[in-house]
C-alpha cells in the first residue's frame, strides 16, 4: 500500500493544503515547513481519514479537528492511495453525524460510500476504522508521531498478531503459536505458581510449604516432648538417688552411734583426770615457788657478798688518778693566764699599725686626686674659650643678608628673564635719529634735538613743525605692548627678589653668599672642636672629682683623729711613709697571730684535763654509791633469811616437798596420756560431724523423696515416652514427605526453567526473518558487526538491545535519546518491510520529526538506511521543520509552507477525488458522545507537550 496524494481542508489550522503529491520514484518524501506550519496536523488529518469512522461525533473529537479559528466549515480530507494493485480515492467529511461523508472510489471507478466505504477501507489498510479513542492504535508501528521516535518499538505499538502471522508465513509456520506448547507451558507456569511466588519464594499454603511447616512444627513438638521426657527421667533418677541417699544415711547413723557413745564415755573419764591433774599441778607449783624463793635469796646473799669485796678492791687506783689530774689542771691554768695578757698587748700594737697604714693611704689618695682635679679644670677653661669663638661667628653670620645658593640662583634666573625681555623690546622698538631739521621736531610733544637718537617703544606722535604730525607705531601695537609688559613684569620680579634678599644688586648678593659660606665653614669647625672636647662629660667629671676630693679629705681627717700620735710628712714623703706603715702593720699582725695560736692550744689542753678529772671523779663516786647499796641490801637479806646454816636447813625442807608433788602429778598425767586426749578429741569432732551430716542427708533425702513421690504419683494426660517415640516416627514420616514434596517442587522449577529457556531459543528462531531485516539496516547505521537483539519467550517480545562489537550490549532504555530514535527507526522500518509483503510489497511509514538528535555523521548513515528501506519497497515519508538537514536523503521535497493559508481555490476539493464537494451545513450533529477529541488523546497530547511545537 502506498500513499499517492492528499488534500486537507478546514482541519484545525489548515484551511486548504492544496493537493499534495506524496509518492515519488525513490519512495522517499520529505514534507518540510517551519514550526507551526501545520505539518503534524496534516499527518494527523491523513491518519484520521484512514482510521477514524466518518460519522464519529462528540464535541471532544470534533472540536479537536474543526477549523481554528472557527469558520463553520467541516473538516474534509482526501487521500489517494494504491492498494491491491489499483488506485483508490478516499474522501471524508467529518460533521459528527449521519451527514458526514465517506466515499471510496475504487480502481474501476465505482464508488463506495458510508459504511461500505469504511469496511472496504479497513480491508485495504488491515485496520478497520473505528472511533477516535482507538485511532492511536492504528498503524502505530508505521506512524511515528512527533516526539515518539524514541519510544520502544516493542511496546504497545507492536502489531503482535500481524507479526506472528507474517513470521509464520515466512517459514517458521506454526512454531510461534503452537497451541499445545502454549497450553502446556501455561500449565507448567500454573504448577510453578502453585508452589512459588513471583519473587522465587515458596508460596504460602503450597504443598512444599505446608510440608515444611508441618516438619518444623513436628520438630518443635518433638523438642518439647524430649524435654518433658528428660524432666521425667531426671525426676525418676533423682528419686532413685534420694532413696539411695536415704538408706545410706540410715546405715551410716547406725554405724556411727556406738562409736559416738564410746568416745563420749572416754571423754568423761578424761575430764575427771584432767581435774585431778589440775589440783596436783597447783600443789607442785606452790612447792616449786617456795623452793625457788629460798634458793634465789640464798644465791643473792652470796652474790652481793662477792660483788662488795670486788668493788672495794677496784676503787683504790681510781682515787689516786683523780688527785694527779687535779694537779695538772692547775698548772696549765696558770700558763693560760700569762698568755692571755701577752696577746692583749700584741692586738693593741696591730691596731695602731693598721690605723697608721690607713692614714698614710688616705693621704696618698688625696694627693693623687688633687692632681686629677687640676687637669680637669684646665680642660674646662679651654672649652669655654672655643664656645666664645662660636658665639662670635654666629653673630657675624646673623648680620649677613639672607642669600644662599638657592636664593642667588633664583636672582640670576630673574635677571636673565629681564635681559631677555629687554632684548625683545629693543628688537621691536623704533630708533629715531634726528639728523637735521629746519623746523621744530617733537615726539609726543617733547622736542627732539638734532643729532639725538630716541628709542620709540610705543605708539607716539612725531610733530614736525606745525603742520606735520606723524604717528609712529613701532613693532605692531599689541606685540610691542605685550613685550613691554613682560619687561616690566620681569623687572618687578627681579626687584622683589633683591628686596627679599635684602640686597640692592645681584653683585652684592653674590658677595653676601660668599661671606656666608666662609662663616658657616668656620662655625662648623669650632663646633666640632667643642664637641670633641666633650664639654658635657667634662663637667660631670669635674663635679665628681670635686665631690671625691671632699670625701677623701674627710677620710684623712677621720683617720688622723683616730691616730693622733702619727706625724704626717710633707707631700714628697707621703709615698715612703705609706710603704713603711704597711710593713709595720704586717709585722704586728704576725706577732699577734703567733700568741693567739699558742693560747688556743693551751686552752684546749686545760679543757681536756678538766674533763678527764671530772670523769674519774664521777666513776669513783658511782662505785662508792654501789658499794653502799650492796652493803645495805645484804644486811636486809641476812636479817630475813638468817645465816648460812639456817638457810641450808630451810632449802632441804622445800626440796623434799617439791619432789612429792611431782610424783603425784606424773601418775595422773600417765593416766591421761593413756586415754590419748588428742585422738579422742579428733574422734569426737569427726563423729559429731558425721552424725550431723548423716542427719542432714537423712532429712534432705526424705524430703526430696517425698516431693518426688508426690510429683511422680500424678499422671499427666500424655505419656512422655510415647510422645517422644511417636514424635520420632512422625518426624521420619514428615521428613520423607518433605523430601518428596521438595523433589516435586525442584522438578517443577526445573520444568519451568527449561520451558523458559526453550521459549527464548525458539522465539529467536521464529524471529529470524525479522531480525535479518533489522540487522541489515542496523549494520548500515552502526557498522559491521552491529545488531539489534530481542528477547522472545514465544509469547511476547521484549528486551530490545543494541550490540556493537566495540561497545558491547546496551539495553534500549540505556541508550542515548538520539540512538534510541535510530534504533527504534531501524526496527520500525524492518518491521514495515516484513509486513509489507501482505500489502503488495509496500507500506508507508511516516516519521514526524524523527532523528532530530542525530549527529551529521549518524544522520548520513540514517539516510543510507532509509534509502535502503525505500529500495526494498517501503514508502518513507519524513516530516521535518528543517529540510536542509535531510538534503543527502535524495527525497522528493514537498514544501508545506502556507498550508494554513487558503492556497487552493475556495470550494470543492476536486483536483484528485473529483467530486469532493462542500457539504451543506448540517446542524443535527450526530454526536454519539463516545468519541474523544484527537487533541485529548494522551499520546498525541503528550508528544505535543514534549516537543513544545504548538501541537500542529
Amino acid at each position, binding site marked *: 500500500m502506498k500513499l499517492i496524494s492528499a488534500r486537507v481542508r478546514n482541519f484545525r489550522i489548515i484551511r486548504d493544503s492544496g493537493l499534495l503529491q506524496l509518492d515519488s520514484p525513490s519512495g522517499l518524501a520529505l514534507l518540510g515547513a517551519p514550526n507551526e506550519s501545520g505539518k503534524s496536523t496534516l499527518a494527523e488529518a491523513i491518519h484520521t481519514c484512514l482510521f477514524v469512522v466518518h460519522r464519529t461525533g462528540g464535541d471532544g473529537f470534533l472540536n479537536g479537528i474543526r477549523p481554528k479559528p472557527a469558520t463553520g466549515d467541516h473538516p474534509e480530507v482526501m487521500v489517494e492511495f494504491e492498494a491491491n494493485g489499483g488506485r483508490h480515492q478516499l474522501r471524508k467529511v467529518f460533521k459528527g453525524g449521519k451527514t458526514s461523508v465517506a466515499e471510496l472510489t475504487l480502481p474501476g471507478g465505482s464508488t463506495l460510500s458510508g459504511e461500505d466505504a469504511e469496511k472496504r477501507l479497513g480491508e485495504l489498510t488491515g485496520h478497520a476504522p473505528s472511533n477516535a479513542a482507538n485511532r492511536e492504535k492504528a498503524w502505530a508501528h508505521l506512524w511515528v508521531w512527533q516526539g515518539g521516535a524514541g519510544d520502544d518499538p516493542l511496546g504497545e505499538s507492536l502489531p503482535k498478531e500481524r507479526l506472528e502471522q507474517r513470521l509464520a508465513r515466512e517459514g517458521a509456520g506454526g512454531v510461534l503459536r503452537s497451541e499445545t506448547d502454549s497450553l502446556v507451558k501455561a500449565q507448567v507456569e500454573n504448577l510453578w505458581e502453585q508452589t512459588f511466588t513471583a519473587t522465587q519464594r515458596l508460596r504460602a499454603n503450597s504443598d512444599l510449604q505446608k510440608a515444611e511447616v508441618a516438619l518444623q512444627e513436628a520438630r518443635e513438638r518433638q523438642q518439647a516432648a524430649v524435654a518433658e521426657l528428660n524432666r521425667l527421667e531426671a525426676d525418676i533418677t533423682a528419686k532413685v538417688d534420694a532413696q539411695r541417699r536415704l538408706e545410706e544415711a540410715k546405715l551410716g547413723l547406725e554405724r556411727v552411734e556406738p562409736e559416738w557413745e564410746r568416745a563420749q564415755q572416754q571423754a568423761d573419764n578424761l575430764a575427771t583426770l584432767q581435774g585431778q591433774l589440775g589440783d596436783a599441778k597447783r600443789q607442785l607449783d606452790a612447792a616449786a615457788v617456795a623452793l625457788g624463793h629460798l634458793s634465789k635469796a640464798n644465791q643473792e646473799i652470796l652474790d652481793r657478798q662477792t660483788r662488795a669485796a670486788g668493788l672495794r678492791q677496784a676503787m683504790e687506783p681510781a682515787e689516786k688518778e683523780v688527785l694527779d689530774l687535779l694537779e695538772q689542771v692547775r698548772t696549765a691554768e696558770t700558763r693560760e693566764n700569762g698568755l692571755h695578757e701577752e696577746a692583749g698587748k700584741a692586738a693593741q700594737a696591730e691596731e695602731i699599725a693598721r690605723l697608721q697604714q690607713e692614714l698614710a693611704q688616705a693621704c696618698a689618695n688625696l694627693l693623687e686626686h688633687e692632681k686629677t682635679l687640676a687637669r680637669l679644670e684646665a680642660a674646662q677653661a679651654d672649652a669655654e674659650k672655643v664656645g666664645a669663638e662660636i658665639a662670635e661667628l654666629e653673630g657675624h653670620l646673623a648680620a649677613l643678608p639672607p642669600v644662599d645658593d638657592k636664593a642667588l640662583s633664583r636672582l640670576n634666573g630673574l635677571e636673565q628673564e629681564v635681559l631677555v625681555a629687554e632684548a625683545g623690546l629693543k628688537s621691536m622698538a623704533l630708533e629715531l635719529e634726528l639728523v637735521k631739521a629746519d623746523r621744530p621736531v617733537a615726539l609726543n610733544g617733547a622736542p627732539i634735538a638734532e643729532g639725538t637718537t630716541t628709542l620709540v617703544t610705543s605708539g607716539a606722535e612725531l610733530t614736525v613743525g606745525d603742520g606735520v604730525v606723524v604717528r609712529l607705531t613701532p613693532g605692531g601695537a599689541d606685540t610691542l605692548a605685550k613685550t613691554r609688559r613682560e619687561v616690566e613684569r620681569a623687572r618687578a620680579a627681579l626687584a622683589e627678589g633683591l628686596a627679599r634678599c635684602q640686597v640692592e644688586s645681584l653683585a652684592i648678593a653674590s658677595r653676601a653668599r660668599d661671606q656666608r659660606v666662609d662663616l658657616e665653614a668656620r662655625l662648623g669647625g669650632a663646633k666640632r672642636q667643642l664637641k670633641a672636647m666633650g664639654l658635657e662629660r667634662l663637667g660631670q667629671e669635674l663635679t665628681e672629682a670635686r665631690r671625691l676630693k671632699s670625701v677623701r679629705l674627710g677620710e684623712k681627717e677621720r683617720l688622723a683623729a683616730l691616730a693622733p700620735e702619727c706625724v704626717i710628712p710633707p707631700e714628697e714623703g707621703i709615698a715612703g711613709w705609706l710603704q713603711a706603715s704597711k710593713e709595720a702593720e704586717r709585722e704586728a699582725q704576725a706577732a699577734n697571730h703567733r700568741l693567739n695560736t699558742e693560747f688556743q692550744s693551751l686552752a684546749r689542753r686545760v679543757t681536756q684535763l678538766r674533763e678527764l678529772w671530772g670523769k674519774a671523779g664521777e666513776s669513783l663516786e658511782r662505785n662508792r654509791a654501789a658499794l653502799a647499796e650492796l652493803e645495805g641490801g645484804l644486811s636486809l637479806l641476812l636479817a630475813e633469811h638468817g645465816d648460812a646454816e639456817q638457810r641450808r636447813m630451810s632449802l632441804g625442807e622445800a626440796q623434799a616437798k617439791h619432789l612429792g608433788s611431782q610424783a603425784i602429778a606424773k601418775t595422773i598425767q600417765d593416766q591421761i596420756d593413756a586415754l590419748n586426749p588428742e585422738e579422742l578429741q579428733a574422734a569426737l569432732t569427726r563423729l559429731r560431724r558425721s552424725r550431723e551430716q548423716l542427719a542432714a542427708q537423712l532429712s534432705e533425702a526424705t524430703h526430696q523423696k517425698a516431693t518426688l513421690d508426690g510429683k511422680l504419683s500424678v499422671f499427666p494426660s500424655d505419656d512422655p515416652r*510415647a510422645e517422644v517415640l511417636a514424635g520420632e516416627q512422625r518426624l521420619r514420616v514428615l521428613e520423607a514427605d518433605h523430601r518428596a514434596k521438595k523433589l516435586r517442587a*525442584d522438578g517443577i522449577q*526445573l520444568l519451568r526453567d527449561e520451558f523458559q529457556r*526453550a521459549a527464548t531459543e525458539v522465539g529467536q528462531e521464529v524471529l529470524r526473518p525479522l531480525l535479518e531485516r533489522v540487522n541489515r539496516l542496523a549494520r548500515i547505521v552502526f557498522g559491521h558487526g552491529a545488531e539489534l537483539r530481542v528477547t522472545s519467550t514465544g509469547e511476547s517480545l521484549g528486551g530490545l538491545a543494541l550490540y556493537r562489537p566495540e561497545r558491547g550490549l546496551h539495553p534500549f532504555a540505556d541508550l542515548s535519546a538520539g540512538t534510541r530514535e535510530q534504533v527504534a527507526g531501524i526496527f520500525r522500518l524492518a518491521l514495515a518491510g516484513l509486513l509489507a509483503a501482505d500489502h503488495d510489497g509496500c507500506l508507508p511509514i511516516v516519521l514526524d520529526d524523527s532523528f532530530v538528535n542525530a549527529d551529521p555523521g549518524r544522520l548520513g548513515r540514517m539516510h543510507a538506511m532509509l534509502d535502503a528501506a525505500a529500495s526494498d519497497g517501503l514508502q518513507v515519508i519524513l516530516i521535518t521543520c528543517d529540510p536542509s538537514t535531510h538534503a543527502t536523503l535524495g527525497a522528493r521535497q514537498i514544501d508545506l509552507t502556507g498550508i494554513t493559508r487558503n492556497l487552493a481555490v475556495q470550494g470543492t476539493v476536486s483536483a484528485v477525488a473529483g467530486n469532493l464537494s462542500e457539504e451543506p451545513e448540517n446542524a443535527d450533529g450526530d454526536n454519539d458522545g463516545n468519541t474523544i477529541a484527537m487533541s485529548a488523546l494522551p499520546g498525541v497530547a503528550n508528544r505535543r507537550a514534549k516537543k513544545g511545537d504548538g501541537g500542529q
Partner: protein
Amino acid sequence: MAFRFLHTADWQLGKPYGWVTSPEQQNRLREARFDAIDRLGELARGEGARMVLVAGDVFDSNRPGANTIVTALGRIGQMGVPVLLIPGNHDHGGPGSLWETKEFTEQSRRLAPNLRVLTECQPVEMEGVVVLPCPLLKRMETTDTTAWIRQLPAETWDSFGTRPRIVLAHGSVREFGSAAGEGDAPNQIQLGQLPSGQIDYVALGDWHGVKEVAANAWYSGTPEIDRFPKGADNRPGYCLIVTTNRGANPQVEERRTTRKLWHQLERQVHSSEELETLELEFHELLKARVNDDLMELEISGSLGLDGRDRLERMLESIRPGLIALDVRDRVTVNPTEEEIEALTCRAGDPLIRTVAGRLLERYRGSTGEAGATALSALRDLHGLVCRA
C-alpha cells in the same frame, strides 16, 4: 487337679503409632488395643478360664497417660475373671512407674478389683494354682528374673502341694528370643535353670507372635497386631487357653483375637499386566474392608512414565480405605520408546520437544538428586502433555 486359664501378653496399651500420619487412624489403632481386652474377657469367660495371666507389657510405657490407665482399668474390670499381670520391659516397675503410684492403686481398686499387679518376686498362692511372678523392675534387667525361683527351699515347694506351678515372666529365653530379631536382649530368662520337675507352665511375654518354646513354655504373643510381622513364623494376634495339671504337660490352645490386619507385601512390577495383577491382588486382599487394614508395600521393578503414573494412581485409590499405607518405593522409571517419541518427536510443539529432550538427557546423565529432579520434571511434563 486341672487348672484352666487364659495366657496373654504385650497388650501395649497407649502405643502412639506416630508413623501413622492421620490422628484419626492413630486413634483407631489405639482403640483396637483396648477392644482386644474385651475379646479376651469374652474368651476367658467362654472358655471357662479361672484367671487371665498377662505376661508383661500391658502398657506401651511405664508412664502412660491418665486416660490410657483409666480406660485400661475400666476394660479389665469388665473381664469378669481375676487378672494377674507383671510389669514388662515397656511398663517396667521401679521408681517413677505407674505401679508405684497411689493414683494407680486407688483407680485400680475402684475400677478393676479383679486386677492384681505382681511387682514382687514371691509365690502367689491361689486356689488351685501357684503363680511365680518374675516382674521386670528395670527396662533392661541384666540378671535372670526367674533366679529367685531357684532359691526357693524344698519346704516351700512342698507347701504348694498338688497345685500347678505357673511361672509368669517377660523377656527372651536362651533357646529363643532376640537372636531371632525381636525382643529385648538384656532381659534373658534361663528356662533351663528352673528347678527340674517343679514348674508346670511358663507363661512368657515380649515376643509378639504366638510361639511354643517348650512343651510347657509358650509366648502367647500380642492379642492385637501392633506392627508388620517379621518372618513367616511370626504369628501375632492370638491368645492361649491353657489347661495345666501338676506334673503333666499343659494343654495349650490358640485363639485368634486380632481385628486389624497388617499386610506386608513385597512385589515387583515391570509392565501394565503386572500392574493389573497387583491391582487385582489389592482388591482380593482388602475386599470391602475399610479402616481395618494396614499395608507395608515394598515395591520394585521398572516402569515407563505411564506405568509409573498408573501405579501411583492405584496406590492413591487404595490409600483412603487403609489405616495406613507404607510404600517402600524402589520402582525405577524408564520411559518407553513410545513415551519418548511422544514427547520428543513433536514437530509442531517445539517447546515441549526441546524441554523433553533436555530433561531426558539430564535424567539419563545424572544420578542422585539431579536425576530424581529431572525425572520428577519429566513425569510432570508427561502428565501435562497427556492431558493437553
